[in-house]
């Protein structure tokens, strides 16, 4: 058994504290920025109904000027899953809007992250193994360039080339308009067809980071004594490259892989806007355009919570693949 209770408690505790901080920031930041939380959460202009405004204000304690009272009410509502009502989607609660959007973002972001990691891993390893070669230099150069480009620009370029000029992929959206009449198989096909280009964009945009990290790690591993001994023992190049080199290069990057999720989600927000892909990003964008403050706060919370959960999962998986962790 690889887990020990101290490690488990530490990671759980850390995730919990992070979660708490994110929740508190979500409460505090709008107030610090000088926004009026009362009118933000329960704007009569947006909601149009005096009763709704009153009920919301009571729920969130906005009828009481004490910040602590408001905070307690806010936490209480949060525990009940109440994030307020979205103006733009009135009368849908914020939580409903977010829950509908989340799977789209999660699907594309996770798929893209895994694939990008895999491809970046292969390229980075090949580059480090033959450091200084033409392959190494050209991938390095490309990686630096890709690292300098905003996600959404890559998205626009891809739409222009692959959707508009070549007509290989749809110009946007996540599903065909008439999907309800489709068979189950066609539904899946439609979803994959629409998701391809957004996922591809995210892969290309995040590839560079993975290439650079893995190349660096492997370069460091290659200078270790056990690599020399592996060569001396007469191990095949493949065995040395993967079981000895790549595996050791991969491990330290694993935690970074999950941390990068935050970065990928940030990129996914703008990418979704370009593709009109109905995920968290597009919801956030529309919320910003419509000054739909409860929804903006809700989206921050959902993004933060997802990333924290993913990190916790990574922390729990890590000891399973690296024998050195969690034992001391």
């Amino acid at each position, binding site marked *: 058994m690889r887990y020990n209770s101290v490690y488990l408690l530490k990671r759980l505790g850390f995730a919990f504290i992070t979660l708490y901080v994110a929740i508190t920031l979500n409460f505090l930041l709008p107030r610090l920025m000088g926004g009026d939380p009362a009118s933000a959460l329960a704007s009569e202009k947006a909601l149009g109904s005096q009763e709704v405004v009153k009920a919301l204000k009571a729920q969130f304690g906005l009828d009481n000027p004490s910040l602590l009272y408001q905070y307690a009410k806010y936490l209480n509502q949060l525990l009940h899953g109440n994030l307020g009502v979205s103006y733009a989607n009135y009368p849908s609660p914020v939580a409903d809007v977010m829950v509908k959007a989340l799977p789209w973002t999660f699907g594309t972001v996770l798929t893209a992250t895994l694939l990008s990691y895999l491809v970046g891993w292969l390229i980075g390893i090949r580059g480090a193994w033959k450091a200084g070669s033409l392959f190494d230099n050209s991938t390095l150069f490309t990686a630096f360039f890709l690292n300098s480009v905003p996600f959404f620009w890559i998205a626009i370029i891809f739409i222009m080339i692959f959707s508009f000029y070549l007509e290989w992929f749809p110009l946007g959206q996540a599903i065909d308009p008439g999907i309800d009449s489709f068979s189950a198989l066609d539904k899946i096909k439609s979803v994959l067809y629409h998701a391809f280009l957004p996922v591809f964009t995210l892969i290309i945009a995040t590839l560079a980071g993975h290439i650079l990290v893995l190349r660096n790690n492997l370069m460091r591993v290659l200078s270790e*004594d056990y690599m020399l*001994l592996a060569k*001396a023992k007469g*191990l095949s190049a493949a065995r040395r490259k993967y*079981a000895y080199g790549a595996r050791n290069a991969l491990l330290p990057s694993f935690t970074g892989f999950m941390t990068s999720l935050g970065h990928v989600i940030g990129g996914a927000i703008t990418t979704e806007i370009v593709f009109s892909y109905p995920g968290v990003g597009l919801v956030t964008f529309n919320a910003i355009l419509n000054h739909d403050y409860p929804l903006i706060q809700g989206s921050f919370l959902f993004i933060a919570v997802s990333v924290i959960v993913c990190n916790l999962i990574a922390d729990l998986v890590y000891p399973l693949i690296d024998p*050195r962790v969690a034992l001391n």
Partner: protein
Amino acid sequence: MSKLLQVQNLSIEYASPRGVVKAVDNVSFSIGKGEIFGLAGESGCGKSTTAFGICRLLRPPARLAGGSVVLDGIELTELPDEQFDKLRWSKMSIVLQSAMNNLNPVLKIRSQLMDAIVAHEPDAGKEAAKRAEQLMRLVDLPADRLDSYPHELSGGMRQRVVIAMAMAMKPSLVIMDEPTTALDVVVQNGIIRKILELQEQFGFSILFITHDLPLMLEMCDRIGIMYAGRLVEIASRQEMKSGPRHPYTQGLLHSFPPLYGPKRRLEGIPGHPPDLIRPPGGCRFHPRCARAMTQCSSREPAVLADERGQVACHLYNEEGLSVEQASAARE
């Protein structure tokens, strides 16, 4: 004693931004069957580089610049890489420095030991697993340690595993590069004893590299002293103990406290090893040598080989006498 390894005029150099570094310069020595040969010198003198040159494990930019290495009648320097890979470990294995990272941290000891066997005998299969257990017993480690990861073992245990690994193919030569340096003295003694015991049992030869001269005087049959990429003296253990001839060797021996006998003042050697990009002309040791003469800075001393070993120093003429002795004899 018949020769197992013969190194002739071995030169190794590497390009640095400031120029070519001659890390090993025209080094020649031989090791007999079953002999323990020590190579000593200050750090950076090229002793480890010599060892890596012999087993073709130089890390770029270091490269073999010339010379020949004959092991058991086979000229190694002309061997193609694939053949060398087969020969290494089956005829000649290495034990690297005992610092942390000799073992792959993410593989169990079992698979690292079996790797060494299977790489040379792809069909070994089940047999390899059995041999891994035998190897563990050989170095006094319990077989259940095969399922440990390196970080679960102590430094001494790890080094035992590395030694067991070196025994995997019953080589005729084992190169040991500072095998006990990072370990504490008690563990170190245990490992040295183990090495000597295994050597007795299997009769392989050892090229033993260390900067720990007293240790070398304890265990090696013959000892070579390197300075600034050159071999300055070779002598048997007895000769070394009774009185080395090269001033550098003398200085080196005086830098260690004697293990037995009366205490005496320790004398270091003044100055620093030279810059190997532009080494001093003549004898490379002359700027630090208390007994330097005029010819020392201009002419490279010839190697004098006699029954006491060999030495490269202007103090000794063809008869193997010091210049002072020679002039005294003439009078």
